C-alpha cells in the first residue's frame, strides 16, 4: 500500500516536472515568435519610410576631371532621417563609403532629415564627357531611437557635365 503511494507520488512529480518543462518551452517559443514578428514589422516600416532620390541633372553631373571628383545631389524623400555615416555611392563600377565621401547637407546641420539634400563628392577616375555611366547611392534609415531601419537607395544613368 505504502509502496503504491510512493510510486504514485513519484509518477505525479515526474509528470509535473515534464509538463512544466514543456510549458516553459511553449512560453519561450511563443516569446521568440513575438519578438521576430515585432522586428519584422519594424523593419518593413523602416523599408517604407527610408527613401532617397539622386536629383542630379542626368545629362550634366558635376565632375572635376583634374581631381576626379564626382558630385551627387541626394535628396531624402522618405519620412525618417537617413544615415550619413552609412552612405555608399558608386559610379562606373567604383563604390565609395565612409571617409571616401565628402558630404555636406544643404542648408546646414548634421542630420539628413526628410526633404534635405545631401551633396556627396567622391573620387572616380577617368570619366569622359559624352559617355553614359551608371551610378547609385544607398544608405540606412535612422529611427528616433537612433536605430537603423530600412534601406534607401536609388540609381542614375548619367553623363558628366562638360
Amino acid at each position, binding site marked *: 500500500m505504502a509502496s503504491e503511494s510512493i510510486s504514485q507520488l513519484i509518477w505525479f512529480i515526474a509528470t509535473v516536472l515534464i*509538463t512544466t518543462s*514543456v*510549458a516553459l518551452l511553449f512560453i519561450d517559443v*511563443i516569446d521568440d515568435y513575438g519578438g521576430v514578428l515585432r522586428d519584422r*514589422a519594424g523593419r518593413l516600416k523602416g523599408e517604407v519610410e527610408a527613401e532617397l532620390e539622386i536629383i542630379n*541633372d542626368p545629362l550634366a553631373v558635376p565632375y572635376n576631371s583634374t581631381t576626379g571628383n564626382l558630385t551627387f545631389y541626394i535628396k531624402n524623400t522618405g519620412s525618417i532621417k537617413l544615415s550619413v555615416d552609412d552612405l555608399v555611392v558608386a559610379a562606373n563600377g567604383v563604390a565609395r563609403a565612409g571617409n571616401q565621401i565628402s558630404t555636406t547637407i544643404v542648408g546646414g546641420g548634421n542630420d539628413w532629415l526628410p526633404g534635405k*539634400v545631401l551633396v556627396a563628392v567622391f573620387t572616380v577616375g577617368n570619366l569622359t564627357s559624352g559617355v553614359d555611366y551608371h551610378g547609385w547611392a544607398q544608405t540606412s534609415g535612422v529611427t528616433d531611437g537612433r536605430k537603423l531601419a530600412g534601406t534607401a537607395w536609388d540609381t542614375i544613368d548619367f553623363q558628366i557635365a562638360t
Partner: protein
Amino acid sequence: MATTAAWLILMVGLITGLIIIQHDVDVATRDLKETSRSLISRQVAVKNTECRIEKAVYNNSSGVLTVVLVNSGSEVIPRAEVTLLVDGHLQTTLNITGGHSNKYIYPGESVNITVRLSNAPQRVIAVVSWGVAAMECDIERR
C-alpha cells in the same frame, strides 16, 4: 490526478505565452497599420505633386536667372524643398518671391526663383517634394 495537473500546467504555460506575445502582436500590428497608411499617403502625395517651369529668363547684364515655377499639382509644395540645378550644378542661394505664403507654394500658384550666375545657363531643373522635377532648356536671354 497527475493527468489533471499536467493539463493544468500546460494550459497555464500556453496562456502565459499568449499574454507575453500580446504586446509584441500589438506593436507589430501598429507598425503594419502605420506602414500601410504611410505608403498610401506617400503614393497619393507623389501622384498629386507636379510642377512646371513656365519661363526661365537670363539677364545678360545683371547675370541673374529668373525661373518662374508653377505648382501645377494639387499638393502644397514647401518652399524649403525647392532645389534648382543650373547646368547640373546645385544652386545654394536661391531667392524665392511671390505667392501667398512664405512657407509653401500652393496649388496653382507661381513663384519667381532668382539666382545670380557667372555664365549664361543652358539647362535648368527645379526639384520639389518627393524628388519631383521640372526641366527647361529654352532659356530666354535679355
